[in-house]
Every structure is written in structure tokens, then in C-alpha cells.
């Protein structure tokens, strides 16, 4: 059941009605029921798996807390975390394993991939549960006694498809809010859903056609067209992913739960470190806490080499978290290299610019531009079907690198599969959505919007709803729902 389907709209409407009519003390249990119903609509057997994982984690956390010795606590923590990671790795790598080792030998064909379907939202609920176990082990959070609260945390339907990865503490702190949701937050939630829908249909889905065309056959396009395609993919990925995050956060608010943010205007980052602090924040902060910090601590005796290794492993983990493919591995490695170089040279760069005010002013706008282009380059690996086609795409970006009859500066929108007005609409909508994102985090603009006449706000909402209905092309999937 996709968030962009009639069935989901019906499900959400019914769930909201029953939830808000129910007595306060029933609401968490009811929400858990809706979450399992949502999951059940996708697969019965994997719903059983989700329940089994939850039960196992519930018991493991209590056992960790109950052990008197550090050794006993550590053993239960390691057993719990390892089991979850093996489960995640086994499902995520099964498809790759069959293709790499069996297909060339003829023991299986590509249809084998269908035999091993990754459970919906596995990455997200496994990461939530691993974080919870480690929090209990580190004694930053007591083990949850209420099974419904833990089960709801793992299965919460707005977040299970593609996050955001909420921390256990933050979720448990809001259980009381689920019992009596705030009316103001309900309205904010509706607005947030609408914002996400607009981004999805007016920007991401429009650009998807162009991106599909250039990545299907990079050799058929000029350097300029490939560059436009690369920019468009970075914008598509960002708007598509931030759209599903907006919708997830918005739906959560309808039930009284505020989820964590995933983005903070990442494409205006002065360096690649800052970019990774503002992009997919719920995953990167999770990895920083539960992977990078323990790894960096254990490698600290290696000095700078330990720092580089920890960064590199972290970035490769981010890459292959998306899927066990060579392109995602390359995405992780390239990001690892960029990040290591940036971390090791940042102090020197800051020193260089300190005594040069004119150059510093140039740096202010040149640095985000350079960072954006580095990110665009890494996204080519992220999007490409194979490593070969990614390298072919990058080679095609450099005029004259490969012999081609196509002029390097040709810009044929017809062959790209988009009209000039549609491209302009996307660009305008993207700039407007970024301005709204920026303003949403500033109290002055929030107050300004609240002070506008009701008629203006209603007209705006109706216009946006109409735009969503008119522009909706029937796409029901989101890029990050696949991870």
C-alpha cells in the first residue's frame, strides 16, 4: 500500500477516524493495530517476522538490564545486535548473492531475485531496534517494560516504509502525546503532507522521465545534456526523498508523534562534512552514534590513520546500506575519499582563508557550489544501473573525452523527454520549495504566515491541492521506499 494510493488514503482516513474517536488509553494499542494492518497488507509472513524481531528485542533489552556483570550485559547486547545485523545482511545481500554467484553458472536465472524479497522497511526497523539495544546497554535508556510501546516504535506505519529513523527515547517520550494529540500539530501535519505531495508530483516525478532517459543511454546525449541530467537527478533524489519524509512526519503528527527531520538545506553546504550533517540526517546521526563513534574509539590508537579508516568504513556502510551493488559501493567509496580529504585539510583551508578577506567572500558562494558539484558526481554512481554505465556517464560529461557525433554543447530538450515550460516549472517549484523549507525553520516567517488572512491561506491550500491532483501522473513509488 503506497502512500500515494487510493487504498492508503482510505486506510488513513479510517484509521484517523477510529483513533480520534477512541478513548485516550486505547490509542497506542489502536495505532499498533493500524501499523500491523498496514504491514499485513503487504505480507503475512514478514509481519510475523516483524513481530518475532520485536519480541526478541524486548526480551534482549530486559536481559541486558537484568545482568549484574558487564560481561553478561555485553554478551546479550552482542547477541542481539549481531542477530539483527545478520538478518539485515542476509536479506539485503541475497539478491546480489544469487546474481553474482549463480546466474553465470546457469544454476539460476534473474527470476531468482523474486524468491528473496527484502521485507518492507527492514533497514529502518532493524536500525531502530539496534539503536534501542545499544541505548539500553550504554544505560542511556531504561529497557521498555511496555510491550505495546516497543512494538509501536518498531512498526509505526508512517515511518516503516522509508524512515525517518526515530530514536527510541524520542519516541517513548511521546507515548503520552499519542494518547492526547495536539490539535495545532494536527494542522501542521496536514500542511506538511501537502508540502511533500507538491514536491513529489511537481518536481520529482517530472524530472524522473528526463533522468531515466539520460541514464538509460548516456552515449546518446551531449556533455551539456548529461550535465543537466546529473543536476536533475540530484534534485529529483532530494525532492523525492524529502517528500516522503515530509509525508511520514506529517502523518506521524496526525497521530501525535513528531518524527526527526532528515534534511536541512543540504545543497547549500560549505563542505562535504556539512553536507553529510544535513543529508539523510536520521541515518547519518544514527551511524555517527552507533557505528562511527565506537569504531573511532577502538581505532583511536592508530591516530590519523584510525580517523581515516573510521570515516571510510562509515561511508562504505552508508553506500551498501542502500543495496549490495557495485554502484552503491562506489558511491560509498567516493564519498569516503571526499570526506577524508575534506576532514584532513579543513584546518589548513580555514587558516589560508583567515587572512584573506576578499578570497573569503568568494569562498562563501564558491564553496557550496563546489560541494554541490561533488555531490552531483557521487549521485551518478547512486543512480546508474551498473558501474560501467556510471563511468560512461562521467566520461560523457567531459567534452571530447569520447568520440561522438553529438556536439558537446547541444541541449535538445525533446530528446531529454521534457518540455521547456515543464523544466522551468520544476526549477521554479524547486526554488520555491527550498525557500519554504528555509522559512519553516524561522519563527519570524512562521508568525508572518500565521498572521496572513485566513482566506489567503485557504486559497493557497486549495491551489496546491488542485496542483497535486492535476500534476499527479500515477506514480506510486518513492526512491527511498526501495531501501
Amino acid at each position, binding site marked *: 500500500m503506497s502512500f500515494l494510493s487510493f487504498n492508503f488514503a482510505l486506510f488513513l482516513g479510517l484509521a484517523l477516524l477510529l483513533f480520534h474517536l477512541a478513548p485516550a488509553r486505547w490509542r497506542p494499542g489502536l495505532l499498533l493495530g493500524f501499523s500491523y494492518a498496514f504491514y499485513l497488507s503487504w505480507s503475512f509472513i514478514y509481519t510475523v517476522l516483524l513481530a518475532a524481531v520485536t519480541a526478541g528485542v524486548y526480551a534482549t533489552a530486559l536481559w541486558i538490564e537484568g545482568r549484574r556483570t558487564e560481561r553478561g550485559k555485553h554478551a546479550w547486547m552482542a547477541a542481539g545486535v549481531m542477530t539483527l545485523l545478520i538478518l539485515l545482511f542476509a536479506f539485503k545481500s541475497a539478491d546480489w548473492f544469487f546474481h553474482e554467484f549463480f546466474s553465470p553458472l546457469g544454476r539460476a536465472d534473474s527470476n531468482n531475485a523474486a524468491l528473496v524479497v527484502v521485507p518492507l522497511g527492514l533497514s529502518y526497523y532493524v536500525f531502530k531496534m539496534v539503536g534501542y539495544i545499544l541505548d539500553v*546497554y550504554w*544505560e542511556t535508556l531504561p529497557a521498555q517494560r511496555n510491550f505495546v510501546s516497543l512494538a509501536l516504535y518498531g512498526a509505526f506505519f508512517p515511518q516503516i516504509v522509508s524512515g525517518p529513523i526515530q530514536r527510541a527515547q524520542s519516541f517513548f517520550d511521546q507515548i503520552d502525546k499519542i494518547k492526547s494529540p495536539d490539535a495545532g500539530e494536527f494542522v501542521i501535519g496536514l500542511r506538511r503532507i501537502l508540502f511533500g505531495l507538491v514536491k513529489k508530483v511537481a518536481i520529482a516525478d517530472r524530472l524522473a522521465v528526463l533522468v531515466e532517459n539520460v541514464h538509460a543511454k548516456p552515449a546518446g546525449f551531449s556533455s551539456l545534456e548529461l550535465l543537466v541530467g546529473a543536476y536533475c537527478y540530484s534534485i529529483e533524489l532530494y525532492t523525492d526523498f524529502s517528500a516522503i519524509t515530509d509525508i511520514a512526519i506529517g502523518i506521524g503528527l496526525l497521530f501525535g508523534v513528531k518524527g526527526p527531520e532528515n534534511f536541512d538545506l543540504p545543497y547549500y553546504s560549505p563542505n562535504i562534512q556539512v553536507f553529510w550533517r544535513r543529508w539523510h540526517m536520521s541515518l547519518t546521526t544514527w551511524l*555517527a*552514534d552507533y557505528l*562511527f*563513534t565506537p569504531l573511532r*574509539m577502538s581505532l583511536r590508537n592508530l591516530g590519523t590513520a584510525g*580517523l581515516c579508516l573510521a*570515516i571510510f568504513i562509515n561511508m562504505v556502510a552508508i553506500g551498501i546500506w542502500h543495496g549490495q551493488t557495485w554502484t552503491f559501493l562506489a558511491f560509498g567509496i567516493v564519498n569516503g575519499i571526499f570526506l577524508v580529504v575534506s576532514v584532513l585539510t579543513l584546518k589548513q583551508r580555514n*587558516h589560508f582563508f583567515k587572512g584573506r578577506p576578499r578570497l573569503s567572500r568568494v569562498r562563501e558562494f564558491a564553496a557550496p557550489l563546489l560541494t554541490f558539484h561533488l555531490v552531483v558526481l557521487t549521485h551518478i554512481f547512486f543512480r546508474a544501473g551498473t558501474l560501467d554505465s556510471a563511468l560512461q556517464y562521467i566520461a560523457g560529461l567531459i567534452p571530447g573525452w569520447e568520440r561522438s557525433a553529438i556536439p558537446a554543447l547541444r541541449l535538445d530538450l525533446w530528446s531529454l523527454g521534457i518540455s521547456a515550460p515543464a523544466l522551468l516549472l520544476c526549477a521554479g517549484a524547486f526554488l520555491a520549495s527550498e525557500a519554504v523549507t528555509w522559512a519553516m525553520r524561522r519563527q519570524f516567517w512562521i508568525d508572518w504566515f500565521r498572521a496572513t488572512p485566513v482566506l489567503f491561506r485557504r486559497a493557497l491550500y486549495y491551489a496546491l491541492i488542485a496542483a497535486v491532483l492535476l500534476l499527479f501522473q500515477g506514480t506510486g513509488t518513492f526512491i527511498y521506499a526501495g531501501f
Partner: protein
Amino acid sequence: MTHPEIHQKLTLVFRDLFDDPTLEISDATTAKDVAGWDSIMHVTLIVAVEKAFGISFTTKEVKTLANVGSLIQLIAKRVK
């Protein structure tokens, strides 16, 4: 070492690491208050503190630090 002594020495570690000779820290200071104090710099800071005070922390201890005040308390426990 007393709390003010640790605070004074810790300030020098912060100033050197974050390359800011005027940086002031208090017990309530957190990563959000210091420019450049991100997850990468966090363990680098811990390593610098370990070196400056001749002590060692566990990952579990590092994970429970809430602010500079709790770091000072942890240092005080170790240097006794």
C-alpha cells in the same frame, strides 16, 4: 585536580582543537554551541582530552556525556 583547574586545562584543549583562541566553555556547553564540534570532531576531542590529562575513557563513558560539565566530572573521576 579541582573543577576550575580541569576547566582551565580543558579550555586550552578546546581552543587548540577548534582553532579558536578566544573560545570560552562552561559546564552547560554542548556540541551545538561550538562551531565545528560534530561527530567526527567529538572523538578527536576525546582523544585530545585523554592525551592532555593522561587518562583513558571507554566507549560507554563517551556515549553518556551530555555536556562539558559531565566531561569535567568524568575527568575528575579519572585523574584522582
